[in-house]
């Protein structure tokens, strides 16, 4: 396992992973930067064609039905109700006058652009109602995130002194869970419709469409993670992450759904309540990702989930904002604490497979905590309302970044599992091959054993039965010829048995055996023997059959010399090369008579010698002439 290849692979993988995370973060930052640039752009180029109205007469009505109007006052736009009319919840009428913008073409269609009006607006021009953003009574249409564009009908529009009436339905800051949804009206802009439509589109892109796209992305990722978590149950953080993403996406649903069938109190209560499970999931995810688990924290989070709505209910709708903000602080602290705990634990005990996880996570979680703190500051009205829904844009981007990390970790573990499986498979294959090999060897050995045993049995039978009978004939026969024949038969039998049971013989040993026998026999027959073989040791082997057949040939040749040749001297020469083995037996006897060659052959056993040599793919040549002795040349392949 310690081969360098998997190591470098993993190293590469983590490097790529780190690069990917960095690029994610860079992309997110770039997105934010571009959006800021784009939003600040229109003010610069709108020019004289657009008139911005920054003050209006405002009259607030306490009750929709009675329409008890207070005397109008002059207010500056933007008019944040929380500043100008604290705790007011209801309808405010704004009246303002404007002239046709000087920079606009005479025939150009003009429009009114309201960047922020919360929650809803109805617009009248010169006494004619020309636009309604939706329901003006509970449940009020929630247009807080939507910039409004009202086309001004040219027929109603005068060159000078146009009266613009806006009825704004809004909620007191105390009755909403987020400052972004408190009642208010931004500055009004009047200008060419085309320009303002572009501005509205841009506003919608960043405040609505981007949030929607991110919410969708996060929802899809969430589902994927839930499935992953379901598949790999030991990694609970996948499930936590999945549900966190899904919950966030659900919370972002309010961007889509402007006309909810409940009144403001219910909706705001639900929104605020939803933060408890989201934070609980986030905390649980971080803990689980750091391989921590605490019953205590789990119970506390569950309790919080109950406690939060209970306190909101007890406080009542009029104290919603204050209570919600108190809870936001608690939740923000919890989230930041969980992040810090995660980082602390992973710094101290980095997991082997997430060694390179630390710094990307520091970046992600750092950005997350900054986001949370900024949002908290916004709620406490420290920097004023931002132009972008920071939380709605920032959190999904961070969630996506975390998802990228998670998927990398998952992919890596998948890779590791795959590699492990491959090694395992290879090992199984090896083991199987070895077992098969062993089995084959065993079977072969078994066959060999059985064959060997059977050969031994045959050999023993031959010795005990045939051998004993031949022996009896040898020693009991009256006829010398018969006992010689029986003796020869016995020798043949023994050689056969040896060929049957014998193992390969070293050629050097075979030569030694032949030499000893030949020299002994010739010596007993008073024939001078001159045997010369190779002096150097060879390790070549002769099969048992080759040994037996050669023994027979040599024995026959020596017997011929002893019986028939009348020789007094016998020369034997052996030569061994890599390929073949040669044996020459030469005597100085009377030779084999030519004319009797055929007949004598049988007695001299020449044909059987030749036949045996042929059986071994060798040859046996006999040269003889009367008075010249006999030369037998045997060559055998090795």
């Amino acid at each position, binding site marked *: 396992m310690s081969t360098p290849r998997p190591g470098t692979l993993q190293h590469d993988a983590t490097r790529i992973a780190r690069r990917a995370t960095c690029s994610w973060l860079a992309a997110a930052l770039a997105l934010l930067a571009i959006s800021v640039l784009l939003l600040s752009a229109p003010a610069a180029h709108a020019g004289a064609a657009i008139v911005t109205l920054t003050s209006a007469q405002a009259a607030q009505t306490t009750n929709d039905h009675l329409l008890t109007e207070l005397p109008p006052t002059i207010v500056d736009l933007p008019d944040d109700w929380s500043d100008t009319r604290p705790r007011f919840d209801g309808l405010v009428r704004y009246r303002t006058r404007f002239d046709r913008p000087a920079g606009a073409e005479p025939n150009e269609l003009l429009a009114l652009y309201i960047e922020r009006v919360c929650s809803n607006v109805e617009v009248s021009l010169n006494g004619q109602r020309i636009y309604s953003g939706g329901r003006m009574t509970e449940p009020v249409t929630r247009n807080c995130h939507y910039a409004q564009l009202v086309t001004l009908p040219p027929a109603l529009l005068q060159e000078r002194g146009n009266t613009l009436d806006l009825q704004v339905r809004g909620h007191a800051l105390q009755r909403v869970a987020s400052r972004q949804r408190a009642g208010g009206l931004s500055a009004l802009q009047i200008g060419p419709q085309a320009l303002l439509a572009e501005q509205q589109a841009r506003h919608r892109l960043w405040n609505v469409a981007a949030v929607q796209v991110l919410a969708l992305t996060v929802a899809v990722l969430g589902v994927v993670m839930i499935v992953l978590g379901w598949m790999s149950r030991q990694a609970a953080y996948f499930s936590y992450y999945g549900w966190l993403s899904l919950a966030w996406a659900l919370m972002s649903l309010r961007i889509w759904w402007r006309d909810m069938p409940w009144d403001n109190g219910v909706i705001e209560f639900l929104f605020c309540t939803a933060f408890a499970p989201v934070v609980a999931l986030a905390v649980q995810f971080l803990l689980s990702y750091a391989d921590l688990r605490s019953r205590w924290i789990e119970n506390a989070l569950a309790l919080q989930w109950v406690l939060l709505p209970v306190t909101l209910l007890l406080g009542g709708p009029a104290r919603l904002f204050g209570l919600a903000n108190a809870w936001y602080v608690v939740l923000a602290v919890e989230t930041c604490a969980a992040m810090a705990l995660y980082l602390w634990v992973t710094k101290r005990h980095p997991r082997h497979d997430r060694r390179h996880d630390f710094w990307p996570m520091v970046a992600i979680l750092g950005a997350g905590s900054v986001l949370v703190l900024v949002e908290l500051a916004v709620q406490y009205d420290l920097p004023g309302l931002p132009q972008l829904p920071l939380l709605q844009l920032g959190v999904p981007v961070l969630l996506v970044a975390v998802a990228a990390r998670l998927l990398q970790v998952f992919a890596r573990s998948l890779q590791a599992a795959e590699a492990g499986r491959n090694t395992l498979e290879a090992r199984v294959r090896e083991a199987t091959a070895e077992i098969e090999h062993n089995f084959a060897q065993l079977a072969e050995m078994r066959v060999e054993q059985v064959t060997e045993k059977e050969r031994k049995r045959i050999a023993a039978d031959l010795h005990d039965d045939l051998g004993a009978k031949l*022996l009896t004939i040898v020693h009991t026969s009256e006829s010398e010829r018969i006992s010689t024949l029986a003796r020869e038969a016995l020798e043949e039998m023994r050689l056969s048995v040896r060929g049957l049971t014998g193992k390969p013989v070293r050629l050097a040993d075979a*030569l030694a*055996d032949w030499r000893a026998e030949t*020299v002994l026999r010739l010596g007993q027959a008073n024939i001078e023997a001159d045997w010369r073989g190779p002096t150097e040791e060879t390790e070549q082997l002769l099969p048992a059959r080759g040994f037996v057949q050669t023994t027979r040939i040599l024995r026959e040749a020596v017997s011929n010399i002893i019986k028939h040749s009348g020789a007094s001297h016998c020369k034997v020469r052996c030569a061994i090369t890599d390929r073949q083995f040669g044996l020459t037996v030469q005597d100085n006897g009377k030779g084999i008579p030519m004319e009797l060659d055929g007949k004598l052959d049988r007695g001299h056993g020449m044909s059987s010698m030749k036949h045996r040599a042929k059986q071994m793919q060798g040859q046996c040549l006999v040269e003889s002439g009367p008075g010249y002795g006999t030369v037998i040349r045997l060559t055998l392949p090795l």
Partner: protein
Amino acid sequence: MTNILLLEDLPEIRTWLKVLINQVFPQSQIHEAARVHDALELVSAVKFSLALCDLGLPDGSGVDVVAALREHQPECQSVVVTIHDDDDHLFPALQAGAFGYLLKEQARELIAEQLKRMSQGEPPLSPSIARRVISHFASQTRQQERPQNIPHVSLTDRENEVLLRVAKGFTLPEIGVQLNLSRHTIADYVKQIYRKLNVSSRAEAALEAQRLGLFRRQ
């Protein structure tokens, strides 16, 4: 008056051998046995100077009788008389203490001659047996850790020289000429080789028995 043990299961051959022994040793008393069991009984009752033992017997191997003789009557010369000429059969008998071997089918005169030589202390030694003896002693010296009570037997240089030459196919008279030694000296070397083979084999067997946790055979 000497006692000779003849262990042979085939009646004809036994008779034939008996005649032969009578020719070579006319003054001897021949005790016949056809089975290992009978032979062992004879060994415990009679003191022999020579024993001719067949190897393949109905109730066992003649090697056991050779071993018993070596154990109880070390002066007795055991000769294996067999139809097997291969060293797989002969070597165990030589290890057990046999002093030589005769091939049964050989002509009467030849056997008589060999028997006489053996009784005079000139045992035969074939190249294949010599090779077995060489490898036996080679494996003996390889075994390093050897208990103190087991005697270590090794061949002298001269004995080794003789063995090597026999293994290469030279006959004993030839070796005598080559080494400029008398026939009797060569015969003495061969006798020493046989004796040492037996001692060394017994030591090895004892070692093996010890190693297996058995008691030494008494």
